[in-house]
């Protein structure tokens, strides 16, 4: 299959990238450098600002990493290809460029305008959507799966983190 040959190109590209991010727990499926690339990708999807948390604070890449050992196992090759491809596009500097620059690149991938030799026949459209959905899940979903750390997104939305119980009052009863 096409995909496999990509993968070989991709892993070659990866070996150069390195990064010294410190994290609370080691990643399970992603290498240090893959994890850093993914974090930079997620950060562009849901950026942090002074006032509000983003993907970084919610640890969406940890959510994805954990799920890649379970439900998302079948998506592993797609992740590895995509993370390698985006690094290739930036000469291994994806984690170093600004969020604005990453956004411009990802907008191209979203539209399927990625180099077909790197991203496959759809120019990256499918894998972009996959990573977007997983990032949103890791940001807005329940912390039990490794994302939404300390309920940061629920706090941001202004919903009670610990739901109120026991107010079942019937109407007219």
């Amino acid at each position, binding site marked *: 299959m096409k995909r496999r040959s990509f993968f070989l190109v991709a892993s070659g590209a990866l070996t150069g990238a390195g990064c010294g991010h410190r994290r609370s727990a080691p990643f399970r499926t992603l290498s240090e450098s893959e994890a850093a690339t993914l974090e930079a990708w997620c950060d562009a*999807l849901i950026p942090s600002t002074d006032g509000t948390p983003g993907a970084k604070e919610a640890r969406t890449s940890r959510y994805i990493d954990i799920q890649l050992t379970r439900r998302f196992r079948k998506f592993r090759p797609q992740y590895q290809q995509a993370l390698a491809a985006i690094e290739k596009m930036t000469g291994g500097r994806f984690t170093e460029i600004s969020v604005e620059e990453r956004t411009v690149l990802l907008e191209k991938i979203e539209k399927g305008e990625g180099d077909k030799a790197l991203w496959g026949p759809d120019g990256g459209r499918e894998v972009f959507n996959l990573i977007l959905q997983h990032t949103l899940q890791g940001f807005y979903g329940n912390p039990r799966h490794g994302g939404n750390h300390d309920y940061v997104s629920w706090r941001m939305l202004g919903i009670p983190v610990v739901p109120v119980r026991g107010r079942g009052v019937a109407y007219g009863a």
Partner: protein
Amino acid sequence: MALEKVNAVVIGAGAAGPIVAKELAVAGFRVVLLERGRWHSPWECRKDDLRNQRTNVLGNAFGPEDEGNPRVLVNQQGEARVLLPSEGGYNNNAACVGGGTLSYGAMAWRFHPDDFRTRSRYGMVADSTLDDWPITYDDLEPYYEKAEWEIGVSGDDSGNPFKGERRKPLPMPPVKPDSIEHQLLEKAARKLGLHPFHIPMLRNSVPYGGRPACMRCRWCVGFACEVDAKCGTQNTVLRTALATGNLELRTRAMTKEILLDPGGRARGVAYFDENDRLQEQPADVVVVCGGATESARLLLNSRSKAHPRGLGNNSDWVGRNLQGHLYTGAFGLMEQRTYDDLGPGASIAICDYVHGNPGLAGGAMLANEFIRLPVQFMNTRPPGVPRWGLAAKEFMKRNYTRAIAVQGPTQEIPVWDARCELDPEVKDRWGIPVLRMSGGRHAHTVEIGEYITYKAEAWLQAAGAIQTWRRGGGRGLSGGQHQAGTARMGHDPKTSAVDANGRVHESENVYVADASVHVTNGAFNPVLTIMAIAYRAGEHIARELKGKGI
């Protein structure tokens, strides 16, 4: 080796199966109920927003498992794809004791009297299989009442003029209509001259049936209820039936086929037990209640000399007319905060657009939605708002707690080519051929759904929405959690699979008693109608068995 013979074997412990089993067990007959899924108890149900029956990105909480249960979907371009139960397009409901009723939203609608006679009311719609039911609202009315009182419904539809006669009010008052959303929408509906009322719900608003009242949590639709306030078949009729001593429930029991004599009489069923051993369960009657897709599969997998294309399928009506509901509506953003964390959320409805919409052969009930969890809202936005980046986050931050959704189930125009058949190659983990689904919705269904979006939008605008947007639907294959229609009931064996009592035309002792028998699927969520039909079928089968001196 065959097991000991019983009077009836019922397949599927969802909405319908336990009702039939209970009617028979209470009448004194020995019954075996086979359910492929597990029995979940309230205290093991965790509220997992990424793994439930509504949002299943991390799997279905209440079955089927992804492992070993594939289906094949043929898309509008004719391409076939193998799907897992947690993937879109699989048309899953649930596979567990209680079936869909363990985790449903629990809206408990009676169909409108005209929902049973759409062909008479609207005439034939081209390229459709639109038809009247062989039974009327009046035939079902006593059984609707039985379902409301035995399983338990709260609500108050006395303010709804667009409905059939009811002899008895609902047994429980509505959950207190104190949410901000309810109050805004009620005022707005009255301003528009509409007729708002309290949605009937299979949910305890007060202690009922030995179970407590709803504590109004955030996680209702798609989840089991940890205080057991939601009324399903698993915590009502099934308990009654088991208490008689006449019912044996076997879980993790996957029925393979109905065993047929050459003449078409059923001897019983073959099923794989919890240890994957093939068992034979002989019975006087077989009642199929596996849900509209799996019931069709079981019939098609049950062959004999007289039924080379599957039981009930000599006229090719099994698996046809797969339908559900086209859900359409609108979203509105309010100036004020509307989120008050008061579950279940859905509470107010109107039936003004169920029938009588100019130039259209149908309509829909409209209601506000259940609480939308953040993961359910994160892909919702008006045109123009980006899907990601700072602006997307800012949109969520500002609007998650200020949005209201109003939607409704458009009654679909049934289509012959919307179907499930057996895939020639793909099999499940027991080696049983799986379903291959194909076809799509009728164009007019989409038109009705589109009309309904404008009505939903107008309601939101009257409620003070500062911004609204509509959400229509497309022509993709329907079914989903409201799946129905695959073994239509009718008088004529040439244009239906079962008779008005649910008996398969081609067999004297096989019945279908679930959503499969629906001719059309109403402008409402279907479960109370499924329950009413099951009560009626159960009563009929008990009478038949008695008549035969069994």
